[in-house]
């Protein structure tokens, strides 16, 4: 099973794969690897754009 999962997600790096497993998305990874990859990629872009755009990635100065 682990081999199958790894083979079907050769484009996923170890970090993403760890998050997929931690999130319990093994079934989604096996059945829809491209969708999992798209979701991971989207999340990374969202985080990067948010951090880069808002006040130079510094924590907001609010209480």
């Amino acid at each position, binding site marked *: 099973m682990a081999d199958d999962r790894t083979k079907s997600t050769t484009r996923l790096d170890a970090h993403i794969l760890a998050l997929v497993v931690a999130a319990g998305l093994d079934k989604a990874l096996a059945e829809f690897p491209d969708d999992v990859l798209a979701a*991971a990629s*989207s999340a990374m872009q969202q985080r990067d754009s948010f951090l880069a755009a808002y*006040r130079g990635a510094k924590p907001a100065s609010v209480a």
Partner: protein
Amino acid sequence: MTDAHWLGAAEIASAYVTRRLSPVELLQSLLARIATLDPQINAFTRLDADFAMDAARLAEREIVAGRSRGKLHGIPVGIKDIIDVAGLPTTCNSKIMLDNIAKADAHVVTRLRAAGAIILGKLGTHEFAIGGPSFDLPFPPPRNPWNRDHHPGGSSSGSGAGLAAGLFPLALGSDSGGSVRHPASACGITGLKPTYGLVSRAGVSPLSFTLDHVGPMARSATDVALLLDVIAGHDAHDRGSVASNRHGFGNHLQLGMRGLRVGFVRHFHETDCPADAEVVAALEQVAAVLTEEGAEVRNVILPSLAEFAGVCRVILNSEVWPIHAPWLRSQPGNYGQLSRQRLMAGAFLSAGDYVQARRCRRQMIADVDEVFRDVDILLTASALAPACRIDDPDMLAHTHRLQAWTPFNVTGHPAVAVMSGLSKAGLPLSAQLVGGAFQDSLVLRVAAAYERSTDWRARRPPVA
């Protein structure tokens, strides 16, 4: 009465009082129209014609007897299919929810019934209000009455399309990142995202607890105000609900704009995300109309669209993930592809990302509140381009980000989309008016004044 289907709710109420129209006559007219047009528009996921006719007959008897149930007595309303109506399925346009029969009315539906409204049926939506437009869902995507090959906006797609086609006078939508204002913009109608906390979300399928809003949609600001008057109010079952009972949203619609200070957020559409030239020209025309009507228009600066969008996406995806995680783990194949991709994104965000986004959000709310010390209303772009074709996934993905709605989901300020023109291709253009927190009345007052000053509200789509 001919063309009763184009009457607004306020006009219908008046016609009932003077006996120029009855609830049964109106409903017969609408049902005939739905039978003819909805196969082309797909506004409905479930039409409850028998119930509606029974309710119309009862309303007719009561009105003839001089009894009034409330402001919407005998007036049909369509309900987005993520909002519970007791006894009807709330499918959220998902295979996962096809057998989900609502046991009770959502709070807003309870309020509608108490005001005498007739619940006409359930209206098309993106899957769980996030995944669409898409052709791999239980119900086909609604079509834009201005051009059936084009997207009607979403996710409250059936609400916008059905209003524009004259299938009903009022509808409810929901808005977590523009889902009321997008179909309002694409279909040339009027849609309000109220101030956060003003309208209960109890009984509505959640997407993002801190971004979700239920909003009124109609063909005029006057009718939006009438509908808001009925659905607004505190509800202890919604923890976001504000403990107040503000009403009378239509009381000041005739006051106009004289003396109001309008802040024009030009950078949204000029530099942050450059808009289609026709959208820009229409926005400048809106500013000119506001000036002619006595408002003082000045430029204001807010955080950029990219900043707002980044915060909105991180919060939305973080909050929706725990709602859908059990189903995404056990039955990912029962989601449409768009939903599956969008809903899983939250699995890859951390608690730290969410906390940071929430902290940024607080600063953004403070930034926008600060601007409202110097202006009464903001004028901004709404959709930054006319609706694209519904069968072009690349264009749909591209235009998904061409909007200025998410800032006010992030900040919670009230925002209304109003029709501001037609493109050369015959598709609606729109503008957005935004008010300070709980200044929904003022937002609708300016929208109503703008609608009186132009004739866009009278335009009808070719399919109608």
